[in-house]
């Protein structure tokens, strides 16, 4: 199980290692970690901490994409849930109630998407576009156009606090990812989700309840987005309906793609998506630290995506396979030495 996961995420691990190594060359202090007032500080911790929202989103997004769907609304849902948490807490409720209310809002959003996709059979990209556009408006209505600030220590701790010296957001995303990952892989959910994503018709005829499954994955995506929204709001101690989670759905999709889950659905790996999120965050922080214009970020991201997609393309994989086969001990025990492959030969 662990071995196969490792093999699955090797490309992502290599890329992450490369980017981190590059960071270290450029900024020798990159791996430096120190303790201040019982809290760990350092660039590496920062990557893990700042990467929390995208990491959280990528967990839900992975499941959605595995069913051959996509959720464009998660950024807007972040804004909604942040606004809900802020208005509940400024209304005088405890932080726990505020978080639950935010999660409830996220669940509702997810349910809405799920019903549009699974029951009304609207294409996911269109169905979730509705909430992507409308969601930010809803959030603005909730905050009445202003940035709704709060100071409740309980809520603020979710964004800026520490547990066992590590920033709380790190615990949150690792915890959520571990929980979802365990549930999905220890139960048969993962298999059923993959089957639905690969061939929904066959899956239904094999007795899989594709409708409920689809609603469930959008629900999880909504919940993950709500948590991400709370973390972001807690971090800046306020709900900014205009900017919270803006364009973050694209980073989440990118994380999943870098993680090698096909947009055509099917086989998925949450671990790989998380590595994808960390890769994105490492690039972001490297660019921030280098003082380059932020615009470079986009170009560099594009280069990384291209590289990863090329490595994962079936054609390149086949070349790699042929390379391995022709060097090391051949995979074909009976292959006679005299018969050399003639694939690449052109016409004389």
């Amino acid at each position, binding site marked *: 199980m662990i071995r196969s996961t490792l093999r699955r995420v090797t490309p992502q691990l290599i890329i992450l290692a490369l980017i981190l190594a590059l960071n270290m060359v450029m900024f020798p202090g990159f791996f430096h970690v120190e303790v201040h007032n019982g809290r760990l500080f350092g660039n590496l911790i920062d990557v893990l901490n700042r990467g929390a929202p995208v990491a959280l989103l990528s967990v839900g997004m992975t499941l959605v994409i595995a069913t051959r769907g996509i959720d464009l609304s998660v950024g807007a849902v972040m804004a909604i849930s942040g606004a809900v948490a802020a208005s509940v807490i400024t209304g005088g409720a405890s932080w726990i109630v505020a978080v639950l209310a935010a999660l409830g809002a996220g669940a509702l959003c997810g349910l809405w998407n799920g019903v549009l996709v699974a029951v009304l059979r609207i294409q996911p990209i269109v169905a979730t576009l509705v909430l992507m556009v409308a969601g930010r408006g809803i959030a603005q209505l909730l905050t009445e156009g202003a940035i709704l600030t709060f100071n409740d220590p309980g809520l603020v701790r979710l964004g800026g606090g520490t547990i066992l010296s590590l920033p709380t957001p790190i615990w949150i995303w690792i915890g959520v990812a571990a929980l979802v990952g365990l549930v999905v892989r*220890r*139960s*048969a*959910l993962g*298999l*059923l989700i*993959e*089957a639905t994503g*690969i*061939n929904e*018709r*066959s*899956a*239904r*005829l*094999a*007795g*899989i*309840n594709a409708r409920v499954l689809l609603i469930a994955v959008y629900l999880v995506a909504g919940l993950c987005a709500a948590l991400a929204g709370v973390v972001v709001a807690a971090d800046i101690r306020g709900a900014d309906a205009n900017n919270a989670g803006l364009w973050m759905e694209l980073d989440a999709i990118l994380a999943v793609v870098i993680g090698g889950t096909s947009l055509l659905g*099917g*086989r998925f790996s949450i671990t790989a998506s998380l590595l994808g999120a960390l890769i994105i965050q490492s690039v972001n922080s490297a660019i921030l630290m280098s003082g380059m214009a932020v615009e470079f970020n986009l170009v560099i991201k594009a280069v990384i995506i291209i590289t990863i997609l090329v490595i994962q393309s079936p054609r390149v994989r086949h070349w790699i*396979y042929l390379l391995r086969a022709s060097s090391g001990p051949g*995979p*074909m025990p*009976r*292959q006679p030495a005299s*018969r*050399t*492959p*003639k*694939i690449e*030969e*052109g*016409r*004389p």
Partner: protein
Amino acid sequence: MQSDPKPVLHATGISKFFPGVIALDDVELQLYPGEVHALLGENGAGKSTLIKCLTGAYPRDAGVIMLDGAEINPKDPLSSQAAGIGTVYQEVNLLSNLSVAENLFLGRQPRRFGMIDQRRMLRDSKDILAQYGLSIDPAQLLSSYSIAIQQIVAIARAVELSGKVLILDEPTASLDREEVELMFSVIRRLTARGLAVVFITHFLDQVLAICDRATILRNGCVVGTRKLAEVTQTEIVTLMLGRQLEAATHHHERRETGDVLLSLRGFGKRGAIEPFDLDIHTGEVVGMAGLLGSGRTETCNAIFGAQPADQGEARLRGSPLRISTPREAIRNRIALCPEDRKTEGIVGDLSVRENIILSLQARQGWYRPLPRAKIEEIAQSYVKALDIRLANLDTPIRLLSGGNQQKALLARWLATEPQLLILDEPTRGIDVGAHAEIIALIERLRTQGMALLVASSEMEELVAYSTKIVVLRDRRQVGALTGDDISPNAIIRAIAAEEEPRA
């Protein structure tokens, strides 16, 4: 048959390796103009792979292909098409969301002032299809027609594109008798034009009817090329299997069947199948005969809830039963192995192991995963019992040969231990050896007390295992045969009986 000394296509030393599988080993194939050449072999022998290597769909790992005396090196099916080799692959490979005409002309649409000339395309399509005896509306979506018609469209497209060689990989698997005859006449017309036709099929009677020579593959090697005029069917089968096939002995001990398992009254679905009555007993095999489009598949789907019935009632062991989804059917231990395995059966990217346990797992519920050991045991035992040929259980099912996919799907449903097993064309694409095994399996399941409902276009097969046969025509049940009345001729008469008064 022509013995023109110069072959139009001569392939030598063709080899193809897949991880863990030697699919082709030093294969030679010679085609002469004007001949119909059969390519025979068991499921997984390498027939489809050979075709794909010849057309460039797969890169071959060794070998030379000479077309008209010149070496060719097709990199993809398009370039082999341009060179004159047209192909119809085993699984219909057209775009079902385009119109028939667009499929026929895809990539070479007639143009006028730079725009696609729709009117001419439709007119030409009509003309082309008329040559195949089809008078369908080419403006309709391809998906609105049956697999049989889609297959003929695919053939028409390949014929239009190819000049020298036409390759047909199991083209008749989903055609009924008349359509097969129609296609044979098309093939004869094409060979008269000097085309060489490669014909892959598991129907040996068709091979003997239309082919001149045959090349037989076993485990990726050529075991012989024969003139069909000079061999018997038994010799061919022995070459294919590497052993003798015991003569299929279906001694019809029509024993008493058990209690009524499923009882249907006035059961039907508007627009799909007229209301009918049917009782299926335990230990009984009900065969369903009829031409294509007669409503066999619709009947299966209505019982299974894939296209739920909207009239009449069903009783399972006496108690009322409402089935509106496949899940409800499966919960009541009813299973359906569908006709179209590519779109309704396999989950291509999942492993064979996962495909086999999929329905069982779905029935158990997501929160009760089957233990690994159990999964392994189930998968292994069915691979063994049904003799599914594969490199290992982790192989994605789409990489299996067509017949082995079919067996894996059968395994999926047997693993759910159904009380009623519905099989829609269970032997499509299955080789002679496995064909006999599946008939024996149906017989065995019956004696163990299972109830089976089997739809098939093969009369002999239906006769071999059915205890009762219902005959369908124009989406209606038009007759039933039991006991000693069951014979291929009786079935044909029953199918035709309804036709005469109308004509």
